[in-house]
């Protein structure tokens, strides 16, 4: 039988347990913070390696400060020495990614507008096809799409990467949802003032949709910049390779003696998205939460 504790004893034990709990809380938070730093260690190690002089690349004890520091791996990465030049690949990736952004935004916004704001026969059918296609994985059409590109003589061309991605069902879906969330009164006012549908889209809806457009632009950029399988298949000539493919060939072609150069390439490829991530952190997080609906 347990005796009933006096009120005073309760208070003291409460005090003790509260202190213990706070200490535990503080301890676990500190550990969690250290763990989050540790989580970045692989990326930091890549960065550190890219600045190391060749003699320091392989040391028995890992050194986290690249001293003496060198930029030689970066210089080498951009020079066409053996295999693919990362510099050329960087330009290819930039052309493809930026064109994709422009095209996806334009095509998606135009298609999302009538789906959100107009009544017309076939609307539900078009929308159903769109949502249905979100569930069709890209892999199913890789082989036939390759043959389509082959027939069009588009292998090793920029449009082979840009155009298939421009039909972004996700982009249309996302912008349609966003348009629907905007108040219709502004458009009504503009229509009464004599604005036509094109003016309403470009001068009323799009300026209001900046958050969604920015998020879609970032996702499009990430998708195009990081894409691997499709560019690997259609971009077989070295001068047309995008950055991820050129980097993969660095790994396939070089031995561990080239880790400095390989890490420099990895860092170069990570920088644009790192900058975007720092600048637009909140947009990206909100966008991911939305894309969770897409899957």
């Amino acid at each position, binding site marked *: 039988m347990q005796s009933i504790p006096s009120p005073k004893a309760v208070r003291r034990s409460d005090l003790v347990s509260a202190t213990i709990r706070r200490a535990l809380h503080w301890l*676990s*938070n500190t550990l969690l913070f250290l763990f*989050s*730093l540790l*989580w970045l260690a*692989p*990326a930091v*190690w*890549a960065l550190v390696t890219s600045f190391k002089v060749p003699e320091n690349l392989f040391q*028995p004890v*890992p050194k986290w400060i690249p001293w003496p520091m060198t930029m030689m791996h970066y210089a080498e990465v951009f020079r066409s020495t053996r295999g693919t030049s990362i510099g050329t690949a960087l330009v290819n990736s930039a052309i493809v990614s930026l064109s994709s952004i422009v095209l996806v935004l334009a*095509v998606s916004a*135009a*298609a999302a*507008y009538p*789906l959100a704001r*107009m*009544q017309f*026969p076939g*609307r539900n059918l078009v929308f159903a096809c769109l949502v249905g*296609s979100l*569930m069709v*994985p890209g*892999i*199913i*059409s890789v*082989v*036939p799409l390759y*043959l389509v590109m082959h027939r069009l003589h588009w292998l090793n061309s920029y449009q082979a990467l840009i*155009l*298939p991605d*421009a*039909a972004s*069902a996700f982009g*249309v879906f996302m912008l349609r949802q966003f348009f629907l969330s905007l108040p219709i009164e502004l*458009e009504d006012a503009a229509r*009464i003032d004599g604005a036509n549908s094109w003016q309403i889209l470009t001068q009323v809806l799009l300026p209001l949709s900046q958050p969604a457009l920015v998020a879609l632009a970032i996702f499009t950029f*990430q998708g195009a*910049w*990081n894409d*691997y*399988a499709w560019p690997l*298949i259609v971009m077989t000539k070295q001068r047309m390779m995008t950055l*991820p493919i050129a980097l*993969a060939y660095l*790994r*396939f072609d070089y031995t*561990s003696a080239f*880790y400095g150069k390989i890490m420099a390439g*990895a860092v170069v*490829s*990570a920088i644009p*998205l*790192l900058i975007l991530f720092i600048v637009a*952190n909140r947009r990206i*997080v909100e966008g*991911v*939460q939305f894309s*969770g609906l897409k*899957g």
Partner: protein
Amino acid sequence: MAESPTKVPRWRKILVPYLYLLPFMALFLAFRVIPLFYGLELSLTNARLGRTSSQFVGLGNFTRLPDDKRFVLSLVNTFTFALEATAPVLGVPLLLAVLLNRGMALKNLMRSFFFFPYTLSAATLGLIWAWLFDPLVGPLNYYLKLIGITPPNWLGNPVSAMPSVVLTTVWWVTGFYLVLFLAALQDVPVHLYEAAAIDGASAWQSFWRITLPLLQRTFLFVLVIHLIGAFQVFAHIHVLTQGGPADATRPIVQHIYETAFLNRFELGSAAAMSWVLFLIIVAFSVLQFRFLRER
């Protein structure tokens, strides 16, 4: 829909929406819909890359698949990857989300740290981890030896290769799922925890009785996204191991890619494999769609 101030002829009411939809529908038809049916046609022929004519072979490509030992092995590998990755890919972000959601200082900063790897391309990811895993000069082995653990041969051994791939995958995608879980946790009403605390529930009980049941939908949803993605895994494994050693990490997408474009140039056979994979994924997509509709 607002009533338009002027009378618009009926044909314009139909034409205008379709003009906006035209660019998207044209691209969608050319690069999504047509390849889908073209792929189905291909899968019933003996089409080969570099041969202009092909014959109808019925379901021959499908019935021969079980005899293709590498196909079966790749299928097994893909399922192995999906299964081995499920617990850590879901558990690690869930645990981190619960820990981060306790009203921590620096929560957003730590979320960013965990999210950062998700911005990297598969190629960059592969390069970084190949360097970390390097059995001779990689830092991972040094630190493991330091704390008295004999490191495995990571990517060099058929037994440890797949778990190593899973490890890199967890590092890569944790941030993405963490953001989804955190968003779901923030929707859990605080007063539920307060009421539970008043009733004398421990933190552990609150987690099991409140947090997990309310996260159920997000959890199932994330599971489906993970599985759909896992069945299509290719890029980062290709950079890390190229499917080796001894085909131990070779996924089904790599087999399709090599069958069509690298070894056998059998487009018909590769198209058939794509459809098999597609049907597997559809089964999971249907689940996903049901969750979406329930929302």
